[in-house]
């Protein structure tokens, strides 16, 4: 949930609660004030009537508001609510009624004064409606204020967020964020800037260490491999030879793995100078090199290159790129299967028949992911790295029973 929405939501809830309490308070308060006002009014009327009576004037009633009758009874005044049918309104109405007994000029009167009471329901409805209106207005105004704030206050925040999203360790340096002018954000930016710088420095030194280690491993591996190779030349019993060969094989594997990791690091570091390479030629030459393997599995190869596709890349990397994809297409193919290569002006696609299940696209480009093959699991990782560093995009799809790897210029998907 976006921060703005979250804030709006909490505004909404808390204002709703406050307004509900306000509603109840208003209701009782207004009720109370209204009834006090009415009672005051009733008393005022009583005083006026008594005053009139004192001047020996005849005060006739005005039903149902005023009733004056002569009586012998005496009593204390009292107030009560009563329901009387009001012929004018044509309905039963609630009246507040003041009953009082007064002696004026020796004559005892029973004075009854009534006033129409505002109905409680009406009060409630009115309060509810007006408060709801205020509430909606408030929410509306808050919403627009927040929306405006997003553009003014939050703009630098979103700007910095974009910078953060684009942060890559591989660039080897921290990021610098825009000043927002808001203390909290600036503080956060400071922390983030420091953090990314630290992480970059750590990453660089770790990378340096790994690369140095990889290079240093080569010499002892050379010693091991050479000596084992020399032992293999001797006339040893087969059992010993096999053991030596297994050691040799393992050391060789280690060495190859190491070399591939160094290659990955070198591609990452951009240590290959790019030139303009025509992929059509690379595909042709690689097919030529791999022909014995293709023939060995009786594969049919369809090549469709109506146009040329060229990339700014080092030739060796272009060869590795095409080679790894092609040898995968051969390796994972069925006997007598098909390989289809299509080159367009923005990319190329290599498809092959094979196992009938699509591969998991998310995994296949990771290092050391291998399926039933004796490879190192670095082939596609290297392909991916080459693509990433040369403005190329690689994608996988499973179409009509064929596994397809498509390499194309970024932005022309």
């Amino acid at each position, binding site marked *: 949930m976006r921060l703005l929405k979250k804030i709006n939501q909490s505004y909404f809830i808390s204002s709703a609660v406050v307004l509900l309490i306000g509603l109840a308070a208003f209701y009782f308060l207004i009720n109370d004030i209204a009834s006090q006002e009415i009672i005051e009014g009733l008393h005022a009327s009583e005083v006026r009537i008594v005053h009139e009576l004192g001047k020996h004037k005849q005060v006739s009633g005005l039903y149902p508001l005023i009733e004056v009758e002569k009586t012998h009874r005496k009593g204390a005044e009292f107030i009560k609510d009563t329901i009387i049918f009001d012929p004018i309104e044509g309905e039963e109405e609630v009246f507040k009624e003041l009953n009082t007994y007064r002696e004026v000029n020796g004559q005892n009167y029973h004075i009854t004064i009534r006033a129409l009471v505002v109905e409680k329901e009406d009060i409630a409805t009115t309060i509810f409606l007006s408060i709801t209106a205020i509430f909606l207005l408030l929410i509306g105004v808050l919403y627009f204020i927040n929306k405006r704030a997003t553009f003014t206050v939050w703009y630098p925040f979103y700007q910095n967020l974009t910078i953060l999203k684009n942060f890559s360790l591989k660039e080897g340096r921290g990021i610098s964020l825009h000043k927002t002018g808001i203390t909290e954000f600036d503080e956060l930016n400071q922390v983030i800037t420091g953090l990314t710088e630290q992480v970059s420095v750590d990453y660089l030194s770790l990378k340096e260490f790994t690369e140095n280690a990889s290079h240093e491993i080569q010499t002892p*591996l*050379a010693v091991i491999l050479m*000596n084992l190779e020399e032992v293999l*030349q001797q006339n040893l019993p087969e059992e010993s030879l096999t053991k030596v060969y297994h050691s*040799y*094989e393992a050391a060789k594997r280690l060495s190859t793995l190491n070399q591939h990791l160094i290659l990955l690091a070198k591609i990452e570091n951009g240590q290959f100078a790019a030139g303009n390479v025509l992929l059509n030629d690379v595909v042709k030459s690689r097919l030529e*090199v791999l022909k014995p*393997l293709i023939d060995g599995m009786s594969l049919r190869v369809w090549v469709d290159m109506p146009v040329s596709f060229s990339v700014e890349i080092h030739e060796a990397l272009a060869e590795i790129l095409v080679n790894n994809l092609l040898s995968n297409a051969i390796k994972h193919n069925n006997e007598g299967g098909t390989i289809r290569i299509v080159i367009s002006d923005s990319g190329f696609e290599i498809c092959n028949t094979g196992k009938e299940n699509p591969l998991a696209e998310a995994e296949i480009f990771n290092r050391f992911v291998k399926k039933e093959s004796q*490879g190192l699991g670095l082939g596609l990782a290297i392909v991916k790295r080459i693509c990433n560093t040369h403005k190329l995009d690689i994608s996988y799809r499973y179409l009509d029973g064929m596994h397809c790897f498509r390499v194309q210029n970024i932005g022309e998907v």
Partner: protein
Amino acid sequence: MKILIVEDEKNLLETMTTFLQQEGFVCEMADSYFVAEDKLAAFDYDIIILDITLPDGNGLDLLEKIKISGNEAGVLIVSARNSLDDKLKGLDLGADDYITKPFHLSELNSRVRAVLRRRKFNGSKEITFRDFRLLPEEREVFVGDNKLQLTPKEYELLLYFVVNKNRVLTRQSIAEHLWGDYMDMADRFDFVYTHLNNLRKKIKRSGGNDYIKTVYGIGYKMEAE
């Protein structure tokens, strides 16, 4: 043929020396920049195998000195860093070839001999092996009077065997010689096998003898007699 091997890793230096001596070369060892410079001043060599990273200096500097002094020796650079920069710089400075650690001794042998052929005999001298005749410049092979129609890879394969005759060549070593380090081919060994089979067939069809013996589970060996 006299070779100077400049390498600071003693173990490697000795292994390389022993191997090249077996191959019939006269070898001298230098385990530092200083020793190498000293020996170069005193003696003439046909080939210098030069490690770039030495404890007391850079092999590339030594290479520059060798070239400036007008030394005619062929230079084969050895490096633990498979760096293109180093490679280009080395070749620019006049090195004949460049090999990256770890390498196969048979690969070293084949490179040394290629340098020798290019230098001493201008690459034109033919190599004979039993009933084979290889012409490196034309990249042609004859069995008796019959010319073998070989693909470039088959030619390289045969040359590799001939140069390293009587040695067990592991499948790894052959694959690496033919296709380099980085090519990702899980079925490289099948690939080696396919090429080798084609080569054998062609040799037999031309009436030659197949001297390549399979060393079960390990590799192949070209038998000299």
